[in-house]
């Protein structure tokens, strides 16, 4: 959607209804989740999702810095989503940009909607998401990684929070867009869900959809999240059956 005036537009959907990487419209990219790869963090997770590589770490509940943010009746959730300089085609200058700050905000609000924050008054639960290699859907991959890292850290929550983006490409609603689809598609709708209640705790959208398309996109996202949810639970089960290994070690 950020490609007004760009030079060439690829064909996003074949006559057979297959996408540029051969997926069907309702098919997810390959997803691998590893719980607990890091040694210093209280909880961590590494997610490879299509060509995305995202690491998340959780520290806390711990003392609040800066102090004046402390709340007397609950923990605060602080989130920092960051992209490594080399994670994108054109090198990204290190440091927080506006996009990262906005994403950090909506992710923090999503987790505040599920964490039992009142159990840890006057503390901070710090969630760090590092995008090491990006290919569309990094905020969803970040939510999935951070959610598993929170569980790995033993933070009590209503439920895990699966997340996926639904989009519109070549006029069709499609699950889990990859980069070319995101760049040249008509809409992108990242969402994150609490499976227990079926409610959305993160939702953004950009592009254009009719109300009817949007309705179908929400339904497709719910289905996608359920499938991701299973993989998240499996990653946490694996954590305690195999030795934790570092990122990339298959």
């Amino acid at each position, binding site marked *: *959607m*950020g*490609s*007004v*005036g*760009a*030079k060439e537009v690829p064909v996003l959907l074949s006559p057979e209804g297959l996408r540029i990487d051969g997926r069907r419209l309702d098919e997810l990219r390959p997803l691998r989740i590893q719980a607990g790869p890091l040694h210093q963090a209280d909880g961590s997770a590494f997610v490879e999702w299509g060509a995305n590589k995202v690491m998340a770490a959780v520290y806390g509940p711990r003392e609040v810095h800066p102090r004046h943010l402390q709340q007397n009746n609950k923990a605060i959730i602080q989130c920092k989503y960051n992209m490594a300089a080399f994670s994108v085609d054109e090198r990204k200058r290190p440091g927080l940009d*506006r*996009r990262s*700050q*906005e994403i*950090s*905000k*909506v992710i923090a*609000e999503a987790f*505040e*909607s599920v964490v039992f924050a009142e159990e840890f008054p006057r503390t901070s639960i710090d969630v760090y998401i590092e995008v090491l290699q990006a290919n569309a859907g990094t905020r969803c991959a970040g939510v999935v990684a951070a959610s598993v890292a929170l569980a790995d850290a033993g933070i009590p929550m209503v439920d895990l929070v699966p997340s996926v983006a639904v989009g519109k490409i070549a006029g069709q609603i499609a699950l889990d867009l990859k980069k070319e689809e995101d760049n040249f598609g008509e*809409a992108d*709708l990242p969402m994150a869900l*609490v499976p227990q*209640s*079926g*409610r*959305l*705790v*993160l*939702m*953004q*959208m*950009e*592009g*254009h*959809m*009719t*109300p009817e398309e*949007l*309705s179908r996109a*929400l*339904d497709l996202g*719910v289905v996608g999240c359920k499938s991701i949810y299973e993989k998240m639970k499996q990653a946490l089960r694996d954590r305690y059956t195999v030795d934790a290994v570092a990122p990339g070690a298959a």
Partner: protein
Amino acid sequence: MTAEVTAEIRTAHILDLAGEGKRLDGRGPDEYRHIEVEPGFVTTADGSALVRIGDTAVLAGVKLELGKPFPDTPNAGVLTTNAELIPLSSPVFEPGPPQPGAIEVSRVVDRAIRAAEAIDLTRLCVTPGEKTWVCYVDLHVLDHSGNLIDAAMLAGVSALAHATVPAKRFGVAEADYPLDLQHVPVECTFVRLGDALVVDPTFSEEQAAQGRVTIATDETGRVVAMQKGLVGAFSPDDVREMVRRALVHGDRMRIAARGGTT
């Protein structure tokens, strides 16, 4: 009684009222506040509009300057949206670099303008790959009495609707000409108060809210952007309901965007 305790009591009261389908200021759950748009408020801008939604006031100014297109979109103009949540407008804003709240406002407005293709960016290009108009939309919040996103969006799109391209002043054409607005996106924001989804929240209602959803629509009936904010959760059916309501309010706001009162 501390400010925190007062706020807690007010929140409880707002939630109680919402349970009965009522609101602190007497509005119904789907009732929007009075909207007022004053285009051309600032003559140093190439386009401007002062928008008031109830006691909330946002001033938008548009400036056009010549610059270089981005390398990956050589045929397109550049649009930059910036929101300043200055401490003049509310006791909750602090001086310093833009806070996440200000960044969210500017990015949500920016996305709606861009996704709706309100401006045909390719028409802003003067010489492909070399020279283009850079269009700055600056959103200056003056009075923060709730629902900044809708007010900022309406101010921004109104300022664009009344903007002039200073082509003569910059020496690239014989005369200045109006900036053409091909679509008119507006945002409509709801908050959850218990089971109620109320439109156009006041500042107190935002403090009490259990989640916020903003839906941007254009005049063709399409949804062009959405943003869930604050702590809280919404079912897909909630979203469908809010989309339906946002389309109705949107039409009223689009009339106001051209200048005037609704």
